[in-house]
């Protein structure tokens, strides 16, 4: 079968148009997000105007994210870098940025979006004394676990995207409005859902639940770690078990990136229940979005509290 020149030209034109449309799709703002939560928020706000890649996995300990060369190429080609901030990425991002050859996404660059700029940090250390553990000098960076702080993160991201891509400012504002409305509705639901958590005493593995606890009224009594970032010692665990028994603590919150057996051992010795939550979206099954992640965390906490009450 022979093709006529007109058919060939038409096919070529279609191919060209397809290529151009593909190019247009690829022309979306190339965003690299350090953490899954800010990645999801950027997608929710930017829609098709952004293409987002993430560095950390939800199942990972943010302090242990590996420094992989494949992240360097992502960062090198990025138009925008979105970080959760307050030093959460200190273990891997400075090393990656050191070789990414992309000055605009450095912390001093125009395309560096810090989602923490509207957060009022808690647990800001008064001194950088390492005898107190591996403290974050700017304050506790796990504010994403409080959905009200999530709204402030979204605002910072939307404003940052508009700054880098002014042509899309109205799109980002509309995305922010939609997302804020979604979060407002969810926050009202979650406040009611989480009512049984108010006043519940708990311990966590790492000192990362201060914002979550404040929002939902959980009283944090201690951590399995001796100090932030310092593994548990036998002496510390004995003290913790005594404290839990004395204070009638019946909930051990284990973040999914940390080991389960130690949490189980402490729970068994104190008659407490273990609730597994994730400090990052995607850490628990079926929680790829920020909203799903918050919801799954609350459900896990409620289930453990209810099981504890029933027993």
């Amino acid at each position, binding site marked *: 079968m022979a093709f006529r020149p007109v058919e060939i030209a038409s096919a070529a034109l279609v191919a060209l148009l397809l290529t151009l449309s593909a190019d247009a799709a690829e022309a979306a703002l190339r965003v690299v997000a350090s953490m899954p939560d800010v990645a999801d928020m950027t997608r929710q706000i930017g829609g098709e105007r952004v293409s987002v890649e993430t560095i950390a996995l939800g199942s990972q300990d943010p302090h*242990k994210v590996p420094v992989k*060369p*494949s992240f360097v190429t992502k960062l090198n080609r990025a138009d925008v870098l979105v970080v959760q901030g307050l030093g959460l990425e200190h273990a891997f991002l400075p090393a990656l940025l050191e070789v990414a050859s992309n000055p605009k996404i450095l912390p*001093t660059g125009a395309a560096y979006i810090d989602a923490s700029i509207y957060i009022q940090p808690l647990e800001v250390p008064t001194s950088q004394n390492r005898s107190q553990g591996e403290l974050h000098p700017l304050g506790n960076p796990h504010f994403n676990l409080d959905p009200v702080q999530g709204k402030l993160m979204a605002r910072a991201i939307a404003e940052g995207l508009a700054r880098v891509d002014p042509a899309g400012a109205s799109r980002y504002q509309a995305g922010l409005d939609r997302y804020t409305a979604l979060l407002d509705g969810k926050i009202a639901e979650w406040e009611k859902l989480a009512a049984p958590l108010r006043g519940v005493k708990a311990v966590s593995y790492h000192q990362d639940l201060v914002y979550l606890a404040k929002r939902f009224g959980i009283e944090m009594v201690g951590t399995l770690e001796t100090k932030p970032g310092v593994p548990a010692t036998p002496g510390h665990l004995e003290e913790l078990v005594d404290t839990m028994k004395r204070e009638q603590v019946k909930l051990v919150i284990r973040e999914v990136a940390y080991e*389960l057996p130690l949490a189980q051992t402490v729970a068994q010795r104190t008659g407490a229940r273990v609730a597994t939550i994730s400090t990052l979206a995607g850490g628990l099954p079926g929680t790829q979005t920020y909203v799903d992640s918050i919801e799954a965390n609350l459900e896990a906490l409620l289930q453990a509290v209810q099981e504890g009450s029933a027993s």
Partner: protein
Amino acid sequence: MELHRALALLCAAPLVLLSIPASALIAEKELAEVKAELAATQQTLATTLDTLAKVERRLDQLESGATAPAPVPSGPRIPPVNVDNPAISFVIDTALETDTHGSGWDFALRSGELFISAPIDPFLRGYASLAGSSEEGFDIEEAALITTSLPWNLTVKGGRFFADVGRFPHWHGEQLPFVDRPPSIERLIPGESRAEGAELTWLAPIEHYFRVTAGIYDSIGARDELPPEYGSAGDRAFDQLTWLVHPSTYFDLTDTLNVELGGTFFTVAKHGARYLYGVDATLRHQPGTSSFYQGFVLGSEWLWNDEKFHNVDDAGEIIPGRQRFNHNGGYAYLESFFGREYSVGARFDYAEEPIDPIDRQRTYSAFATWFPSEFQRLRFQFDQIDPVHGQNDQRFTLQWTAFLGSHSHGFSTR
């Protein structure tokens, strides 16, 4: 008198006995009243707590803007001044060593190393490393400048630094996963890959990671006793400089399993004085969690040294010679990480001395590391040293390393 007292007691006894049921009734009544009062107080308390909780929630909502149309903060929080500018750290690396050859026990400060780094201006950053030990005085190990904003993904580095040779040759001793530098590396590139010169690095602007470094230096490694075309001391002609190229690439096999490959070539051009070829491969499993199992690293590196070396005269002095020596060496090791605090590993090393055709050695090592925290490390290593010509030896080393001040892992020592 005694009789009267006995009669009084006798009369009072029935009264006391009769009065007990009445007291019990009164107590029961009071108990009920107290219980009712307690219940009422508990009810009041519960109501008060509920009200308090509602007020707290409302306060939180008002503070955080949960119900308000716009977030409360009027402007972004101003971050504090960067406390890490400059970043300053000091590493203390100390060890206790003994072996079965009877050389005794040796406590040693292997290295005390001051490290300073900071951005210099929008175009440049710099770092310096000053180190001293029990055996050597304090010296500037590295003092280098690195560009930060060149176009086309280029980076230039200049000064004194560890040249970008292979994987471990450019690592500082305390950064290695072992207590010692692999003997094969130490023999072929002694004194780390210390060099004075300049490097140009290019990162390919593609999705796949590919990076190549080209360098030109006075020399690579500490070989002070040799003439300029072989050693590290003295002025030299242009063709006595050392030229290097080091491409490297990387593949993600899964989200948590990856492999990195590199190749190194450096040469001293004059009369083809030296050619060194190297390959390195590193397979890593990095789940990035803090569960009990935290991954492994399987690494290997092999170097081929082709050098037109020297002869030794009757007085034992090294003189230039025409004979070429082809000597190789390399290592392979496996390290596994457990429970945030522990790692164990094993290493095999084959080393040849570049100048001595019969001095070959195999070393079998086992090592275990305990990290009480991110900033402190204790490591024990056992080495079985088997020279091809010579007496076997067993060496035991306990290393204690701590990091003061700023501490972060750079990209090159990941």
